[in-house]
């Protein structure tokens, strides 16, 4: 016998620290996002001032004990606006991903499970949407729709759902061809039951990973569109809009753009890290880098 450990054992040993680190990443990022959600929910309680309250006697004050993040050109408290901002950008991002998941999953399941002309028709439809660059399509739609969180959400859903449809369709088609699905059919189970109990759960892991990462991506795009004036309108406390409004002040009053910019960065980073951690935990085909 050889004294050296077997290959699987070696792999397990070498993967252990990574797995541990992955678990911590998952806990920390999920905890961070829960905290953001709590801040958004509790903004009316936590914000020291109303987000729209102006005070012309205290305009453009730097961060201080009275105004932790300083004040803007109308004397509005930047911290309060950043806290309330968590109720627009991230909410738009979660809504967009949620609705896109629903639409994309339904379309992808139908295409992958039914196959044939249904598959062809639905996938060509998604191709039509995917053929136009996502940002360009979102820009065009938000220009046509009334600027605001609702218009922004609709525009982003239209550009986002086809990616989920593609992803789910691939997974569903792969699962549908397997023996246990055939067995279900032979046993007389209905399509709905097969789809919801057997196909969808097997396609859900990559979907979950993708969705958690996408929340960060959508937040960045939504903030970008707000920056261009196509999202929530002034005087709404929105992170992208606040960064845009701070442009003319950036060299002289750094706090106006820095804090909402940091908020966007932190939430987006948390979402990306969560997606990575989820992939490490849930996707058996994915080997984390050691």
């Amino acid at each position: 016998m050889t004294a050296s450990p077997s290959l699987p054992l070696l792999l397990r040993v070498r993967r252990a620290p990574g797995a541990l680190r992955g678990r911590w990443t998952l806990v920390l990022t999920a905890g961070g996002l829960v905290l953001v959600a709590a801040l958004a929910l509790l903004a009316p309680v936590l914000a020291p001032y109303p987000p729209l309250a102006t005070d012309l006697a205290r305009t453009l004050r730097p961060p201080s004990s009275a105004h932790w993040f300083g004040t803007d050109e109308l004397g509005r408290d930047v911290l309060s606006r950043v806290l309330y901002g968590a109720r627009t950008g991230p909410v738009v991002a979660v809504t967009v991903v949620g609705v896109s998941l629903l639409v994309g999953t339904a379309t992808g399941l139908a295409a992958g499970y039914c196959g044939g002309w249904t598959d062809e028709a639905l996938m060509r439809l998604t191709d039509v949407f995917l053929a136009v660059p996502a940002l360009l399509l979102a820009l065009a739609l938000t220009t046509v729709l009334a600027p605001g969180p609702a218009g922004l959400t609709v525009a982003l859903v239209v550009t986002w759902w086809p990616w989920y449809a593609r992803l789910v369709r691939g997974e569903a088609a792969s699962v549908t061809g397997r023996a246990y699905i055939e067995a279900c059919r032979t046993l007389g189970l209905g399509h709905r039951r097969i789809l919801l109990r057997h196909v969808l759960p097997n396609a859900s892991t990559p979907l979950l990973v993708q969705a958690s990462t996408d929340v960060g991506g959508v937040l960045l795009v939504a903030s970008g569109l707000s920056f261009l004036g196509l999202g929530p309108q002034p005087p709404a406390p929105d992170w992208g809009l606040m960064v845009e409004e701070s442009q003319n002040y950036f060299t002289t009053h750094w706090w106006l753009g820095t804090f909402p910019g940091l908020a966007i960065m932190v939430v987006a980073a948390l979402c990306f890290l969560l997606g990575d951690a989820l992939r490490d935990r849930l996707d058996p085909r994915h080997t984390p880098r050691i």
Partner: protein
Amino acid sequence: MSLRPLPAARPAHRRPRARPWPYAAAVAVAAVVSLLAAGCSGGSGGAGRDDTFVYLSSRGLVTEWDPARSYSDEVVVLSNVYETLTRYDAGTGRTEGVLATGWTSSEDRRTWTFTLRDGVRFHSGRPLTAEAVKAAVERTMRLKASASYVWDPVDRIVPLGTRRVRFELSRPAPLDVIASATYAAYIYEVRKNAGDYRADGWGTGPYTVASWRPGGENEVELTAFEDYWGGWRGDRYREVVYRAVPQSSTAAQLMSSGEGDYAGGLPPQLIDTLRGRPGVTVRERPSWQTLIGLLNTRKAPLDDLRVRRAVVNALDYEQLVTASRGALVRSDGIIPKGLLGYTADPDLPGDRALARKLLAQAGYGPGSGRTLDLEMTYPAGDDTIRTLGDLMTAQLRPLGVDLRVKGLEWSSAQWPLAKRKDPDERQDVFVMYWWPDDPESLSYYRNVFRTEKEISYNLAYYSNPRLDRLIDRVGALTATDPDRAVRTYRTMQDIVVDDALVLFLGTTVYQRVLNSDVEGFTDNPAYANVVFVHDLTHR
């Protein structure tokens, strides 16, 4: 910054023969010397100062090239291509000759005779004659576009030889002032085809149009007209570039790096950062440009006089001026200070208690359960108005008024929305700047509050026959009985204030950023945002 081609290299066949090393050494020394010279030249502007004047604008300027039809921002360009008979000096309050060297009027101010400057040529090379003046003014009057109404008193134009022209008027009018108007007073060569004016100069001005790229970064480039009557002695700018820079912060950077010579509309916070910087000069002066919000009198809920009065009283105008950080001063009347008819009104609105009462009477306000929804539009890109809009929203909210402020692109969105056939589809409040068409006060009323069959600038959609009659009368009074004209203007202001047609948001303080190399700049509020580039020299 330079757009001029670099001097051509000496032709190779004429290069003197020299031994290789001394020649290479000479080249190296020349290179070092020129680098040092560039470094010592102030370091601003990259390419250094030369005879190109770069005018930075926040948006594209030209929408109309026809000098008889122009009625918007392109005046900034056209005023350097076309000239008028006279020019108004807001500093002295007098007109000065441009294409006319002198003028006389009859005692009843109904006959005016102008003597034309000798040696003036159009860009085509043809000489300026009395016939040409008659043809240009008659075409402008015939087209009835832009501010052509300024010529309404003119009955007949009679050339007296080639260098004198007589204007016979139907009623007394200060024609020397009218002839200096910002719009519709250009003297130009009349072309059969109106399309000929497009991106081309048919005037007598110091510059001709070199290029026009709508939507391009350098939207318009002008070049010197060599036969200009004013000549080109001294360090005058021979090229003018109008550069569209939508981002104010970018414009400020271009100014501080010396790549721009003039930026006229930067927000105050950026102006503050440029103050005291080497190579940059900031000039400020009060203007005749007022910022007004016109209330839609044809659409609910502002068709109700009580609601209009409530809204105009609900705002704290002092706060708005404070929030503008020096870009505005308080408007104390419709006509700004410095113009005939200016009457400071101590009773301008701003009574919030009255606003609450009126809103309650109209069924709105806190506790009524009804929100007064209003949509206010303004030209997108104006940071001052946007800040004011945020503050107005905050001021109105406690009174149960939900003001939605929309920055819309002027020509493609804000303007068309205001002209929709159905009044219910139009905005509730239209915010714009107004400055006079000529150095008179009439346009503050005639264009904005006089009844219009087809809506142009009367964006309160207001009609009042009594006010119309006063407007029609006050022009002649200005020429014959200025005191009575002032009293009439006061009555007109009372009507507009009583009917609560307008939000007096402020009067602009011109804040201009200039390259320190520019000399001879005078800000003339009679020609809003115009820089007469030929008047300038550079160091």
